[in-house]
């Protein structure tokens, strides 16, 4: 019994916005199953009363003074854009016909 099925992997790919091919799904599903088998070992550790660590060192939030500092020009910000128009990022349509 695999810990993750091919269908579940296909679902993850949709959530992660990756258009996997059938061949990739065939290849990835058993590998992910193996890896999940490995990482599931964390559940062998009894840790009910242990606090989680999200970060290596204790942190407090830092605020900076609210002053203007130099930043990228519009030309610099757009310099790596796949498409730009009128000093803006041009993106594909975000709504479908029916919407």
């Amino acid at each position, binding site marked *: 019994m695999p810990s*993750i099925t091919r269908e*579940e*992997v296909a679902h*993850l*790919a949709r*959530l*992660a*916005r*990756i*258009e*996997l*091919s059938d061949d*990739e799904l065939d*290849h*990835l599903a058993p*590998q*992910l199953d*193996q*890896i*999940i088998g*490995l*990482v*599931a*070992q*964390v*559940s*062998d*550790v009894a*840790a009910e009363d*242990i*606090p*989680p*660590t*999200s*970060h*290596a*060192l204790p*942190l407090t*939030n*830092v605020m*900076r003074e609210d002053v203007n500092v130099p930043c*990228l020009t519009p030309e*610099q*910000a757009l*310099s*790596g*854009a*796949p*498409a730009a128009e009128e000093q803006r*990022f041009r*993106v*594909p*349509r*975000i*709504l*479908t016909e029916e919407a």
Partner: protein
Amino acid sequence: MSDLTRKTAVELAELMSSGETSSVEITQAHLDRIGAVDGAVHAFLHVDTEGALAQAADVDARRAAGDELGPLAGVPLALKDVLTQDGVPTTAGSKILEGWKPPYDSTVVKRLKAAGIVILGKTNMDEFAMGSSTENSAYGTTHNPWDLNRIPGGSGGGSSAAISAYQAPLAIGTDTGGSIRQPAAFTGTVGVKPTYGGTSRYGLIALASSLDTPGPCARTTLDAALLHEAIAGYDPMDSTSINQPVPAVVDAARSGDVTGLRIGVVKELGGEGYQPGVEARFHEAVELLTKLGAEVVEVSCPHFQYALPAYYLILPSEASSNLAKFDAMRFGLRVGDDGENDAEQVMRLTREAGFGAEVKRRIMLGTHALSSGYYDAYYGQAQKVRTLIARDFTNAYEQVDVLVSPATPTTAFAIGDRVDDPIAMYKNDLCTIPSNLAGNAAGSFPIGLADEDGMPVGFHVMAPVMRDDLCYLVGAALESAYADQWGGVLMSKAPELEVTR
């Protein structure tokens, strides 16, 4: 004059300050060396000939004008392609960023430039630093200069190969689970992961933000310490940067006095799965440290065995979230923008075309680990294990000053050996991962060659948070003791590469 590419950074700096040579000459010598051997090694993804020579000429002019210059001014360096450099192509080893030229310098690059260090170009790496061999690079595998049929380690294999092929005396790496230390071990060089927050992540293309740490690579301990000092220190642009003085790494590298230093050998990092030649060299090095006056004891860190599974939950979770920014909208590749496809479909097609297999594996693993119903069992539990690993370190440091282990269970393996076996590949980082999870400083230092295959072995030193100096202290002690035996650093035993013109 003897070959400039064989000199250490310290020697090159002396030659420049005495006026015997210039940064332009030194830089040109390294560019020529890159031209001669990079066809076989493939350490570089981009060589910035013009930019490097211009930087070198600038340092020479400032020196001639009598300006005060830093200790590494005019010395060339190879930069891992995961750090942004204004106007220079930066890919992180991924097709999705092919041709991208960042409009700003990372903090590390800013500090390198301020120190007058000459950046030769960008080095190859596993895509988004996910890997232990550079085989996950979208631009081909880097070859280990000790044996071109073997991998140079990863993810920073380009940086370790560049310094061990004498293409640069210094390099920058980044370490999330061992990506500086494992390549250093595999190439007979020095690599240190500073304390997390000791070096800035600003301008570092993020893999796992709670783990990523830039750091130095070099052929000697002192060179690495000087580079460490040049890039380290508080940066207001990184919210997790530590606002404290940089540990005295250069003094430690100059001293190398381990008299009375308490060293703990981690019981759990050895035995089954460890190559005999690696263990033999490791035990010799421990004995050597005892002879040099260190007090060695065995220490148990019982939760280290869970570091690998915890890491492969925490890292993919953070990575899947960090890599969401590659959405085909603001930078990088865009596929399928035909006027019909909507933004989401374009995103799916772009990420399918732009990401390699390992990146897809880890994004999906992270997506799974963070999804509702699994979060507590996977990510939540991994974070608890992270606490237990940090406690193992804290307990150990009550008894000893530093912990030691082999840097890697095996020496560098053959290209292709583990490429389709993710778990075998992940096990490369067994010894290095605990220090990333706990955030402490750690480094790998060369201690000889394994009998089975004649490949380099690394000695791993783990020091407490903000005691990076202790790594260099032990590294320097070993380096000077072995130099007496070998007549130089381990690199002097490396085979000569065939030179093409």
